[in-house]
């Protein structure tokens, strides 16, 4: 394969194509593509090009970063499993049980701020890990396709969480559809009161997870054995690695990452235990993020930020009279262009070869 057309370059091309397509759709439907650009630039920089006299408003930037936090985590979750040869489509369920477990700790344990928050996060991650353990275990020891189990566990996670919350936690009497508010010790504090954005210290966990992801996979023996298992589990078995156990661990770690996403969202944004009506789709967003980010830490960070931009920018789009479905179309286009990168590389190579041949022909 030609190294020249590196993964990064391809991803960039995909992003540019995706955005171009978005512009085109906006143009065709008679809206202003400039407005679209403004919406994204506002999320990215806080600067409102439509009203240049207004000062920079960091709230939009913080909202963008806030949006990025959970999907980077679910992206890492999908990515981690992917690197071990597993498809974690169960992020949704892991997210919900993580959220619920964190709510339990938040509401039932009395502690000072920092340890309380940390305990909430840890327990959220453990619950996610448990939810990841089930498909991992069934895959490893019963040879059951993890995809089915994950899909089933998404629904089980939803209803089971609701059951636990309704049965064991104190329900908010005003609505009967959520718990009472968390004590202040269990709320992820905002990073700054400068803006109204809820951007909070959950980002520390996200950064930590990113670093750990990279470190574990690339730098530790454990990561080495997981990667070997992912690429060729038979060879890993031949080399004496505990392939089954690795499968279980890997799904547990993936689950923990999605669980972490659930925990930071519930502790930082909602601040009360939720009764879920529908999937939040963070798990599915994670699939896009992981795949576009080529399942490596830096890639996931970047693609998480990108998708968050499209989502929060997508909300902003509506302020500019552009339906937010446009941003969904752009997301789809970007994923699609990433999907066909292999073909694009081949074409580029062919093109290069063609150029070479032309040159050669002239020389001859």
């Amino acid at each position, binding site marked *: 394969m030609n190294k020249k057309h590196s993964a990064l370059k391809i991803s960039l091309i995909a992003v540019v194509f995706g955005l171009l397509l978005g512009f085109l759709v906006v143009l065709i439907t008679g809206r202003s593509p400039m407005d679209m650009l403004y919406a994204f630039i506002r999320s990215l920089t806080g600067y409102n090009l439509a009203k240049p006299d207004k000062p920079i408003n960091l709230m939009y930037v913080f909202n963008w970063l806030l949006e990025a936090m959970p999907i980077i985590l679910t992206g890492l979750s999908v990515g981690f499993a992917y690197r071990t040869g597993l498809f974690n489509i169960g992020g949704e369920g892991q997210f919900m049980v993580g959220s619920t477990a964190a709510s339990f700790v938040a509401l039932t344990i009395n502690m000072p701020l920092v340890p309380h928050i940390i305990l909430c996060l840890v327990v959220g991650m453990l619950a996610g890990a448990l939810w990841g353990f089930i498909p991992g275990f069934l895959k490893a020891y019963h040879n059951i396709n993890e995809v089915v189990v994950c899909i089933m566990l998404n629904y089980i996670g939803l209803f089971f969480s609701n059951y636990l919350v309704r049965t064991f936690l104190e329900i908010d009497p005003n609505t009967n559809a959520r718990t009472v508010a968390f004590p202040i010790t269990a709320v992820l504090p905002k990073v700054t009161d400068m803006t109204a954005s809820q951007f909070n210290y959950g980002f520390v966990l996200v950064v930590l997870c990113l670093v750990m992801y990279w470190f574990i996979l690339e*730098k530790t*023996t454990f990561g080495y054995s997981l990667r070997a298992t992912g690429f*060729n589990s*038979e*060879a890993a078995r*031949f080399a*004496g690695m505990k392939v089954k156990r690795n499968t279980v661990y890997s799904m547990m770690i993936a689950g923990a990452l999605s669980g972490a996403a659930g925990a930071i969202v519930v502790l930082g944004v909602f601040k009360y235990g939720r009764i879920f009506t529908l999937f939040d789709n963070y798990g599915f967003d994670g699939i896009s993020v992981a795949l576009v980010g080529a399942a490596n830490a830096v890639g996931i960070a970047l693609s998480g930020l990108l998708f968050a931009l499209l989502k929060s920018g997508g909300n902003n789009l509506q302020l500019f009279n552009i339906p937010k479905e446009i941003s969904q179309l752009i997301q789809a286009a970007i994923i699609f262009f990433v999907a066909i990168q292999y073909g694009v590389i081949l074409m580029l190579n062919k093109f290069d070869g063609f150029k070479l041949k032309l040159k050669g022909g002239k020389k001859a």
Partner: protein
Amino acid sequence: MAYAIEMLNITKDFPGIRANDNVTIQVEANTVHALLGENGAGKSTIMSILFGLYQPTSGIIKVNGKEVHISNPNIANSLGIGMVHQHFKLVDCFTVTENIILGMEPKTKYGTVDIKKAAEKISKLSEKYGLNVDPYAKIENISVGMQQRVEILKMLYRNSDILIFDEPTAVLTPQEIHELMLIMRNLVKEGKTILLITHKLKEIKEVADHCTVLRKGKCIGTIDVKDTTERQMAEMMVGREVNFSVHKEKAQPKEVVLSIKNLNCNNFKGLRAVKDFSLDVRAGEIVGLAGIDGNGQTELVYAITGLAKSESGSIFLNGQDITNLPVKGRLDAGMAHVPEDRHKHGLVLDFPLKENFIIHCYKDRPFSVNHILQPQKIDEYADFLIKEFDVRSGQGKESKTRDMSGGNQQKAIIARELDRHAKLVIVVQPTRGLDVGAIEYIHSRIVAQRDAGAAVLLVSLELDEILNLSDKIAVIYDGQLSGYVNAEDTDENEIGLMMSGSIKKVGDCHE
């Protein structure tokens, strides 16, 4: 004499490599025409072009004197060209019949596949050419030799006149090879023309009329086989002199390292595959395990290496009972293993070469300290092995293993396993599909390992390899030990008879 096939000035470029460079091959009708060349010389490529799988970058192909454009296998088929690929193209979960008729299915009047009719036709063909296959057997349940005969039947079923065999004997037992040679001669007699790719000069001598030699994509020349010696052909192929027989001193056997006692194991279907098998391997000797494929070798090796459980009996390594240890435990107890299937088991093809080198020792110092990998140490070690074992690849230790040639992949495995300086080295089919140069090298390394005091268990389907390399020869037939003799006291014939279970000769091995 009329040419059945003429491939004139064929050039084929792959991205980054010219696999065929202005190659011309002319094949007379009703002959066996061999193609000889090192690994990667471009033999498979040019045959794939003839079969329509690839398009040549330039060059002309004529069939029976007429210029043709073979843009896909269908056209090749309609021109009467059939091919048995180096790696069989058989669908595992289909039956023999389904595989043979695929693409040319006879239909009933309801439009369904007429399996019955097809099976009958296949039985007849099979009888006519002495192929002996069961049309209703599933591919995954039949031996490699049988699979190959299915491949041959595919061509016969399609009435092909020009048959291409890409390394057909690499996976066969001596008896099977012998049968195949007979079949080929038979086919030629029936009016077919055969193109045969092989690394084995003996086979070329045995069946071929002409031989074209390729080296690094270029055509070196075409020779008349009866006027050329094996040595001359080998030199043409490699471009230098080659050693045929392995140079080795007499063995100095010492203490027993591997001791297998009354071992019984089942295969993955739960049938008994190894029966009451006992064998000792001593330090400083090479014990060759000969046998026809499917007689329990794989299961035996799995049981020794811990990849499968044994039913009863015991295995000792250096006196330690390892019967129930996991894989890792056995490796740590001093075992090295060059597996049969290098792609499936030997290597993680998507790892860079250097990461494949540490697959056993990644948890040990100096490659990792407190579970943290030490890249610098890993790099150093990779460089060392690459140099020591002459492993060649595009980007050295950073090359993706998948991009390396088969021979070099095998060398990488050998390097990794032999450098562990294990007490017991189990090598299975170490030279399958490799060219003579690579074989020569690998054999010498195995002997060196023996001389350094290791006990070597060599499992091979190639009798030449067993005879050349072993100090003692054990023969397995139907899961049982049917022979255990000194290499110098036996010959191909006797081993062949033991392999087929015709005679049994155990225990007159001097120490």
